[in-house]
């Protein structure tokens, strides 16, 4: 190339032209991949709700969908997208869909622990005061209503079902439920254990596998000892002395020479621990209210098991707080049918639906009417048993009323898992640390735990230690 045939400005201009062309292509590619539709046609006149798998005996939740669709023959109809795999999978899918700007879903059924993250990330549409007025807020249990409120004071979700940790005990062996952890330990005598039919027996069976359920059990151990784990003024996560004592008691219950907790609990989730309790391997079971109808339906156990609130810090004080669980219904920012979705949410939280869910599935209702006005499932649905010897219901009205009282008290006392900036990071770090302590280390170091949780809970740059 010589200067006469190609002077440098010519080259510069050619380069610039090429650069502009390339930039345009890049931007075009970028736009064509990312300026997409949102995964669903705007003509699809269906309210799409996404939630975890319908884990109700006999698909009663699906029946609610059917009821709605029968009542709305001209539409809009509802389609329920059910996601198997558990809470982590639900979280993963619902979060990824929002990050993708997807409009696949009009209603999200979210576990209460993920609510704050979804609210803060701006994925949810708040309800206006007018919309809330139509929902009859005073009828909702205050604790459950609070799970859907953002820090800005606005309501982003409406509770659908609730949940709270309870203690099940073998009332044929121990006379009454223990009021404290120490009492639980004292009740676990060799004589009492001998009366259990199972092999490898222990006092308590619960969920201590390395998952969200262990965070729940850990927090309940903390509260049961009168402690707290919470974010302090400076953003540090404080583990107070009582909290450390509660966690140590839990770890000690597993690793001591004569363990109070069934060793297999370290691999157990809800259904495993319930099965172990039904098999007669423990005197006490910590589980959610859904276990009650399962136990009541067991021919051997139905009259031998009682249910109570969790043990508390002092023998003459109140019982311990259970962790508040449940599902809230929220409308994502990208939803296609927001108005219809709100109507559907109102339908799902109406007293009729709440009463039916309680009586027929063992789900914990969120409205007071469902507790006040209790009827057995067959009374509500009009089903008759074929065999007069068999009860058509897994729970009778009397059993439901008895459970109502305990549930109302337990939910009133229940506490939410810590409200930190990045709860998923906090929880993963907490349950992994506890699981290591339960299965390997055998001790809980409050200082180290506090530092770990502070690092993983979101306010400071995370170390490589955060799982």
């Amino acid at each position: 190339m010589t200067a006469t045939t190609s002077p440098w400005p010519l080259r510069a201009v050619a380069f610039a032209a090429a650069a502009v062309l390339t930039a345009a292509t890049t931007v075009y590619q970028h736009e064509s991949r990312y300026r997409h539709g949102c995964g669903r046609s705007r003509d699809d006149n269906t309210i799409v709700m996404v939630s975890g798998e319908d884990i109700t005996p006999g698909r009663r939740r699906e029946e609610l969908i059917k009821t709605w669709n029968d009542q709305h023959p001209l539409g809009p109809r509802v389609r329920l997208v059910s996601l198997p795999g558990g809470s982590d999978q639900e979280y993963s899918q619902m979060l990824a869909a929002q990050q993708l700007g997807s409009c696949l879903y009009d209603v999200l059924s979210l576990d209460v622990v993920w609510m704050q993250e979804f609210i803060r990330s701006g994925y949810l549409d708040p309800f206006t005061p007018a919309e809330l007025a139509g929902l009859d807020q005073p009828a909702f249990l205050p604790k459950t209503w609070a799970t859907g409120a953002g820090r800005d004071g606005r309501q982003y979700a409406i509770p659908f079902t609730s949940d709270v940790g309870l203690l099940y005990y073998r009332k044929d062996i121990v006379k009454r439920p223990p009021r404290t952890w120490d009492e639980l330990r004292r009740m676990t005598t060799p004589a009492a254990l001998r009366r259990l039919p199972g092999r490898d027996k222990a006092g308590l069976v619960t969920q201590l596998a390395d998952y969200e359920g262990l965070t729940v059990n850990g927090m309940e151990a903390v509260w049961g000892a009168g402690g707290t784990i919470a974010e302090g003024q400076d953003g540090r996560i404080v583990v107070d002395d009582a909290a450390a004592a509660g966690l140590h008691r839990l770890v000690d219950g597993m690793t001591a020479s004569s363990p109070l907790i069934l060793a297999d609990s370290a691999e157990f989730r809800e259904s495993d621990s319930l099965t172990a309790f039904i098999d007669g391997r423990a005197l006490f079971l910590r589980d959610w209210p859904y276990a009650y109808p399962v136990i009541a339906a067991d021919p051997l156990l139905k009259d031998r098991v009682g249910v109570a609130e969790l043990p508390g810090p002092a023998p003459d004080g109140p019982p311990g707080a259970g962790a508040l669980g449940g599902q809230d219904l929220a409308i994502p920012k990208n939803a296609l049918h927001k108005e219809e979705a709100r109507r559907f949410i109102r339908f799902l939280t109406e007293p009729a639906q709440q009463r039916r869910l309680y009586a027929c599935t063992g789900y914990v209702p969120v409205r007071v009417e469902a507790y006040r006005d209790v009827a057995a499932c067959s009374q509500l649905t009009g089903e008759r048993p074929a065999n007069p010897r068999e009860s058509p219901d897994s729970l009778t009205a009397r059993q439901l009323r008895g459970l109502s009282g305990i549930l109302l008290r337990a939910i009133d006392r229940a506490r939410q898992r810590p409200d930190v900036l990045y709860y998923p990071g906090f929880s993963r770090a907490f349950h992994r640390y506890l699981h290591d302590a339960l299965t390997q280390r055998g001790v809980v170091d409050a200082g180290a735990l506090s530092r770990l949780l502070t690092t993983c809970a979101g306010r400071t740059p995370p170390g490589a230690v955060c799982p």
Partner: protein
Amino acid sequence: MPSEGDRGIPEHDAGKRPTWAIVVFTLTGSVVAFAAPLGLTLMQTGRLQPTWPAVAALAVAVVLGRLFTRFPDLTDRLVRELGGALHSIVRWWSATGRAAAGFLRGRLPALTKPGRLVLVRQVLAIVLVVVLGAGAGRALAGRLLPAPSPRDAVPCGDPVELRVLTPPEDRDAVQSAADGFAADQARRRHCRPVHITVNAQVPFSDLLQGFATRWQDPSKQPVSTGVMALLGPPPDIWLPAATAEADYVAGRAHPDVTLDDEGSIATSPLVFAVPDDYAQRMAENLPDPDAPTWADLLAAAPKAGLRVARPDPTVSEAGVLATADLYRASHAGHRAGGTGGTGRDGGGDPGDRDRRAVEEQIASLGAPLSSAHDLLCAIRQNPAPVAVIVPEQALLDYDQAKPLGVGCSLPIARPPVPYRPFHPADARVLDYPFVRVTWQGQADAARDTMIDRFRSWLAGGTLQDAGFRDRSGHTESVQLPNTRLETEVRRFTRTEIGRAIAEYRRARLLVTVDFVIDVSGSMNRPTPERVSELDRARELVAQAVDFLGPSDAVGLSTFPGGRAVDDVTSAVRAEVAPAAADHISKDLQPALARLGRAHGGSTPLYNAIDDASKALVGKGDNPAVVVLTDGDDHVRGGIGAAELAKRLAAAPERPRIVMLATGPKGCDEPDVTALTATRTAVCYNATSGETDGLTSLVFAELRKGGSR
């Protein structure tokens, strides 16, 4: 300047020619060209604060301003040369046009003339800039596009949530690689840019359907109107075991689902592993112990006293791949000896007989074999004289006593029986491609960036710590006997996968199965897994559909047939008929969907089994009755266990009776033990556990030849 003027050119101009200025000018131009539109897009979508571009624009203005003040003639020249440049571009286009026209007319184009060479060089230079520019643009896009998030308080905003799908045997390895990646990203960027949820793969048969139906669960699809069950979170990244499998699936995927194969990230050969104690005897029976073929190994195993097991090809992709490897000889043999008149079967594919012989040699271990880990867990728990066909990497997990999934998750010191691999000379290698999945066109830039980085992380050798080989089949160290550092990477083909699936259905023993579901009131009882016993039964039968081929036959009935307390009848819900797609989707699945709740008043268990076995007569080979019940037979006027046993014994072709017990007492229910104690029936506890594992086990038992 002493040298000035010596060279006889107007150096006055040349000395002023600012070479570095050209570079700066061009670079600034390019950067502005890339950054400006990107920045605009970003600001429009609210992902970029205006401060950043403002600062950048200021910097660019200062640089350009300085250039123009330092070289005042630059502006002048630029304006002058712009015209010239346009002219030369037009000339170039017309020259190219002429050349093309000449080429079309069959004449030699004039491109070889010296003057054209300059043009060629210029074009090359432009191409270079375009390529570099595209790279720079992409990198810029990646850097500048954070996830849309107003959560400014959290560094980096929301971590990008990546959904990864792997076969069950690779789950732990991928999970730890993902944890390492997330930690590495956090360290580099001082925030949490990504979180990865790893899901173990669903049954292979469901996977095929899932990609074809936008990830709907095929076994639950028609169950109820208004409900759509997904197979799990639809993955952003799928890490199947073989490229051939990805190709096979991509060929059948829904048009809304895009699968981009981005290359292999690791390899692991399939091996034939035998217990150490049997290795010597095996070697003695092999023609060439250093390079045996699959056929040699299969022939030697029974002589050495070994049965052979492989993961179930219906649910495990490792199983499908192993099957493709095992069947290859059946094709080669017939191509070579097809005309030699070796006396094969008359009709059908002559290789079928060989493949049936292979299948007859495959053992059921009495445990679920839905993955290579399941298989290795079964031999860890119950050591048996069994050779296994698994990926080398899974064998290493076994050898190092790593967790092997459900039932083998607790740590142990060492495997009870060490295994030694043989590397068949005709074995293929699993080449683990990285597949990016896009659903309904939904993508975001932050996700794509993280997917790119995760791909590089995996391809960078992370998986080799977990026992995989690198992409070229190389491993750093040999941890198993009989193993070399290098393995030739011979890949499966897409055709082999499809062929193995079809041929396996023909080669296995056929079954004719009648499912009998108890719909007495007690089946409404909730289980610890929070569904009713009837739900559980329905789920098991729905899953069973995957295990049936068109040559099998299936039917469904329920008992009691009516609501009276002394009802001893059964109701046929779907006749026993060949399990063609039509029969499944039009008869069986709708019938299952209607079983919402149990209403029956009695439980005529023994009568129901008797009715079903009669209904099977003349319907096909290898009849079996599979009963799903909580097991207490209470009804007036029904037959007893002894009478049932007598009737079954008298039947012309006695069916196998399999009980799947869903009740709280499982198989210990007295009315069930009355049958199992006399070996009239076998029972599996179906109260809890993995559905596909249990179904796979039941069908493995049903397809087992020999005594019943």
